[in-house]
């Protein structure tokens, strides 16, 4: 059994999501290799070589892979896939973009967003926005899988010493071009890897009021998130969104402020270790999943909370 994990990285460093995917790969058993496809991505490949339990890192350093364009990277992964039984990627925007393309090139199905490995060919995954967990079995000789990162505890980032092997395969499909990226710059930790997340919903009333969350976030070193309602209302940008169609998070502490708790939001945060809900509507569904619920006006509770921590 051989598994190839497609690394999530920004050429300079390895993203934490890769470590969750390696954990899932470990449960499949056998050798685990990592592919770092990028441009000038030697540093990310070196970081991948530090991950314990990894046999080999394949470093495909080529201009065509710089921005992870799916049209190019999928051709590379499909070619390398010949030597592997399983191809895994974290279920990030990149993983979701690339892997189905790989599966179709290999003429196999894809198993999206797995929550657990039951056996070499059987997995669980959420359907209907997480209201139902399906157990699925793959009949394909080669399995293409994306991994819900919050369902697998990350392996350590250091302690291993895998070999790094350069791969010169160059695939440029020539049908897509990167133009630009607008990445939100923030001093705060990233939503998906933060140990504390504080999110605001429609109850925040406007974007300016999100500043009430900032003081608390600063004190707790927390990331700031939002419900879909708050994003759709234009309070905050889309990359704040926690939920089935946004980011899936599972921090140690999740504080939901002015969020009613729509199914689609719960699907994105209910695996958090401790959930706090602050809402003035005591019947809000968010209280059904909260460990600690505070029925209060958030405009009074937030300044008090900031002062008390």
């Amino acid at each position, binding site marked *: 059994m051989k598994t190839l994990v497609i690394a999530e990285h920004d050429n300079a460093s390895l993203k934490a999501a890769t470590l969750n995917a390696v954990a899932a790969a470990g449960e499949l058993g056998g050798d685990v290799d990592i592919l770092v496809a990028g441009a000038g991505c030697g540093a990310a490949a070196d970081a991948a070589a530090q991950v314990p339990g990894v046999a080999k890192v394949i470093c495909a350093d080529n201009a065509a892979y710089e921005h992870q364009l799916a049209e190019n990277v999928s051709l590379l992964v499909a070619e390398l896939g010949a030597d592997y039984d399983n191809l895994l990627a974290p279920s990030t925007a990149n993983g979701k973009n690339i892997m189905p393309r790989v599966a179709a090139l290999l003429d196999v199905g894809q198993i999206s967003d797995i929550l657990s490995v039951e056996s070499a060919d059987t997995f669980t995954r959420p359907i209907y926005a997480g209201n*139902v967990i399906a157990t699925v*079995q793959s009949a*394909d000789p080669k399995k293409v899988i994306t991994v819900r990162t919050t369902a697998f505890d990350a392996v350590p980032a250091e302690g291993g010493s895998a070999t790094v092997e350069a791969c010169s395969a160059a695939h440029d499909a020539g049908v897509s071009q990167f133009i630009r990226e607008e990445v939100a710059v923030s001093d705060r930790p990233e939503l998906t890897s933060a140990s504390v997340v504080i999110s605001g919903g429609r109850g925040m009333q406007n974007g300016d009021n999100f500043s009430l969350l900032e003081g608390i976030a600063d004190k707790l070193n927390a990331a700031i998130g939002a419900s879909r309602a708050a994003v759709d209302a234009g309070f905050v940008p889309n990359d704040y969104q926690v939920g089935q169609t946004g980011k899936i998070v599972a921090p140690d502490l999740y504080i939901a402020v002015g969020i009613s708790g729509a199914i689609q939001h719960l699907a994105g945060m209910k695996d958090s270790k401790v959930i706090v809900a602050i809402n003035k509507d005591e019947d809000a569904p968010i209280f059904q999943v909260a460990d600690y619920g505070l029925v209060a006006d958030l405009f009074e509770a937030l300044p008090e909370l900031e002062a008390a921590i």
Partner: protein
Amino acid sequence: MKALVAVKRVVDYNVKVRAKADGTDVDLNNVKMAINPFCEIAVEEAVRLKEAGTVTEIVAVSVGESSCQEQIRTALALGADRGVHVEVEGRPEPLAIAKLLKGVVDQESPDLVIMGKQSIDGDNNQTGQMLGALTGMGQGTFASEVKIGEGAVEVIREVDGGLQTVSLTLPAIITTDLRLNEPRYASLPNIMKAKKKPLETLTPEQLSVAVQSHVTQVGVAPPPERAAGIKVEDVSQLVDKLKNEAKVI
């Protein structure tokens, strides 16, 4: 310019779907069915491009049982010009749907294929990308803005860190995210007109596709319950609990 829009019949997004008690499948008895919300956004985008004069013809396609003609009619009422129904029994998997859509693409030669990023039943998020691989087209997945240019389309994509803009050679595939547009409601006169619009039915055999199963559903279960906690009286009790009981701050 011709646009092909794929639509799927799914359980209405307001329905809370549950696993059957025997764990064999989800309970879909007597539930309301509707067009997948992401597909509705895809139809709306095509209609807006037609209204802007960029697109001249919109073909709505659906793969599924005969009942999915209802969703094709919905797309026609929203502004698509004609429909194509690929009749398949049961629940075809994303790869099979992508192969059937490739058959329709070969037949129709669209300049643009617009579809939802995922359906809210299986939540697979695969079909558009798979169609991309099978046709060799570029893909603008999770699109929040689409600008058609000369021989190419610029797509702003919603990615983890923010927004990414890519340029794709036409023909290309676009999969829609939530913020691409807000779909309109079909007017009654347009619903009546849609009944007269042409709708062609095809079989997988006519498209030379063998519908195969790769991944089978062994069983379903409700997600693990999260026990409700307690209500605290005030902020100081909350802070005390978080510090001394949960020990998370």
